């Protein structure tokens, strides 16, 4: 049996996190004051999160997945420990962070006057890499 565990992320901006999760196809609950993750068996003690994806949307998951904002502004991922070893572990979180970073980069760089010229997906030994090329006229 397992329980909900926590993983510290470097994600800070809620907008880009929500965009990333929606882009992955999830319907996300947002609770500024926090809401409880459901307990599907006795070891899953009550945990509170600000952003929640319910288990019904997570094929094969043992529990809900949540993100809770820490006092320093970063989000912590809360999920069942079995899901961390299953389909919602490092690779899944990496995908969330990659989409987050791409959206954040597009938003920030374009406000600095750059225009997106091309977007490529490169297969590397460590997974897919996104390459964005920007141009600026001076």
């Amino acid at each position, binding site marked *: 049996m397992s329980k909900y565990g926590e993983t510290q992320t470097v994600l800070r901006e809620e907008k880009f996190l929500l965009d990333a999760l929606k882009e992955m196809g999830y319907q996300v609950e947002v609770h500024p004051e926090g809401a409880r993750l459901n307990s599907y068996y006795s070891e899953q003690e009550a945990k509170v999160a600000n952003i929640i994806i319910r288990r019904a949307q997570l094929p094969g998951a043992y529990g809900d997945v949540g993100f809770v904002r820490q006092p320093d502004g970063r989000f912590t991922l809360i999920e069942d420990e079995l899901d961390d070893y299953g389909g919602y572990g490092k690779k899944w979180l990496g995908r969330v962070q990659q989409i987050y970073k791409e959206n954040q980069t597009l938003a920030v760089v374009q406000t600095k006057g750059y225009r997106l010229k091309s977007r490529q997906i490169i297969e590397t030994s460590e997974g897919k890499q996104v390459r964005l090329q920007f141009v600026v006229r*001076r």
Partner: protein
Amino acid sequence: MREKTITIAIDSQGNSTLDLEGFAGKHTSPPATRHAGTGWTAYRHAPLEFRGLKADIHHGPESQTKPKAEYIGADHLPFLVFRSQLRGEPYIPIS
């Protein structure tokens, strides 16, 4: 008008070659003093828009390595001994 191009790579864990906080864009404001004393000083001669890039651009000195050898806390790990009985079986204390 000249056209400038930058390429940003984001790996499968969301790590980027661009530090968005250090990215000044095409503006020519003076360098941020909060970077003083950190690795960012290495980019002080680079065009402002590239200061956030952790790419192959190195115009300044590398990080300052101390010239003298010093203790770096590389202690040996504790050496654990698991005793065996004469017949080679694990030693299990009987309480």
